[in-house]
């Protein structure tokens, strides 16, 4: 058997020990603050997007994937998220002089109802743009399913928000879509995106 000599527990700790405990708490707090700072700097890191043809300048989250397809001016997706990838899509619609913004949103809804599963409009509202003009919004939901029926997995409910504004004879639609479980949290990304959007 091995023995270790011991001492009775001290009734009070020494001033040095008191200091070391206080400094330990300080190190933990500073460490947590550094962690928060790192998180914010990584999450808020942005990349610049510039489209001279459409007259749009934007900054989007750096870790998101940029995609410029024919149907949109551009879209960015958060590919790191499991399930439905959060997406911000910017597209333009042709408008005539007598087109109301509501009509444009209805046209979008008709198109989406044909391709999206269980597409449902949740409501309309307004959104204050950085230049203090009011844009109209439409929130909706639909069910997202994997393209291949052979892939195992549950469908996700997706919430969407369209922000539509008409300028210089052109309607610009900013569509934001995210899994309903994280939609509220991800809205902050949309707010930051819109705040930095110039067109």
């Amino acid at each position: 058997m091995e023995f270790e000599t011991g001492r009775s527990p001290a009734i009070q700790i020494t001033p040095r020990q008191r200091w070391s405990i206080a400094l330990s708490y300080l190190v933990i707090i500073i460490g947590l603050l550094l962690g928060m700072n790192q998180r914010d700097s990584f999450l808020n890191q942005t990349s610049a997007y510039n489209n001279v043809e459409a007259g749009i300048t934007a900054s989007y989250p750096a870790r998101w994937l940029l995609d410029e397809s024919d149907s949109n001016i551009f879209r960015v997706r958060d590919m790191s998220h499991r399930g439905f990838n959060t997406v911000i899509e910017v597209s333009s619609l042709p408008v005539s002089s007598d087109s109301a913004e509501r009509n444009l949103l209805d046209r979008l809804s008709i198109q989406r109802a044909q391709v999206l599963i269980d597409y449902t409009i949740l409501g309309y509202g307004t959104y204050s743009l950085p230049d203090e003009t009011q844009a109209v919004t439409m929130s909706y939901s639909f069910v997202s399913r994997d393209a291949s029926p052979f892939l195992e997995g549950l469908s996700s409910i997706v919430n969407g928000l369209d922000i539509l504004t008409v300028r210089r004879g052109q309607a610009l639609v900013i569509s934001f879509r995210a899994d309903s479980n994280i939609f509220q949290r991800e809205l902050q990304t949309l707010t930051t995106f819109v705040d930095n959007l110039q067109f």
Partner: protein
Amino acid sequence: MAQQTQNRAEIYAFRPVWRRISLQLAILSLIAGIFVLANEVLLLRLDAAVSRLVSIVLVFVPGLLWLLLSVLPEYRFSRPRRRLIGVAVVSGLTASAIGLPLVEAFFIVERWLPLQSVFARIIGYTFTVGIVDVGLKFVVLRYLIYPGGLRVRSDAIAYAFAGAVGYSFYLNLVHVWRLDPVWDVAAIYVLANVTIQFASSLFIALGLVESYFGDAFPLVLPTNLLLAAVAAGLVTALFPGLMSGVLSQAGNADRPLYGFAMLVASWALSLGIAYFLFTTSERREREAYGGRGDFDGI
């Protein structure tokens, strides 16, 4: 005088912790190793339900080993470490109530850390996962055993290991329950969480030992906490990279053998470093007090 010292030593007879801890980690590694080899080499495949059951049973293995090899032997002695179970339970509860929610919901590390460079991942995990785990385990030890529960240096090691077992139990349970990995990967996850918590707990314990028994300079304990967070960050950052295979056109497969080897090397290295620092410090102090014939101060 010699008889008196001998009697005093017998009163404070405590089970040596190092051997017990090494044995538990070796057994756990052996179990994980057998599971990995059974799947990788013998190509043993289990039914999904059996695999899940085996994975869940694995979560309890570190706790059971600890109860059998560390807690029960204590009660053969007149003065056992009575707060071991309390430290483990409270550590597990803090992981459940604060640790994991803070890492997942507040720091949301999954969204930004896994895609960073290795260096950024090490720093990132150190100041998120590492500092949260270390901070909580330190607070538990501070309020449950410091200074009342510390009679000899090895008490700090024993209690810190109890904290690691309790804390890692909850993390293991959540990971295995939620991710539902195949049984050999579950064994690696369990070994990984125990190794990460063990490595960081050892540095916390060394800090407590130096602070309390050596009345060390006030920066020693905070420095040890920082090292503990770095140890946790290092293993957390490097382990997934070794576990995942190289991405190719055929996809990528897990490499549990690499992960297993890295984890065994990690806990062995932590144990070796901590044991060396512990014995060196103990010897230095024994010599200092021994010179005056006062062993009671150790």
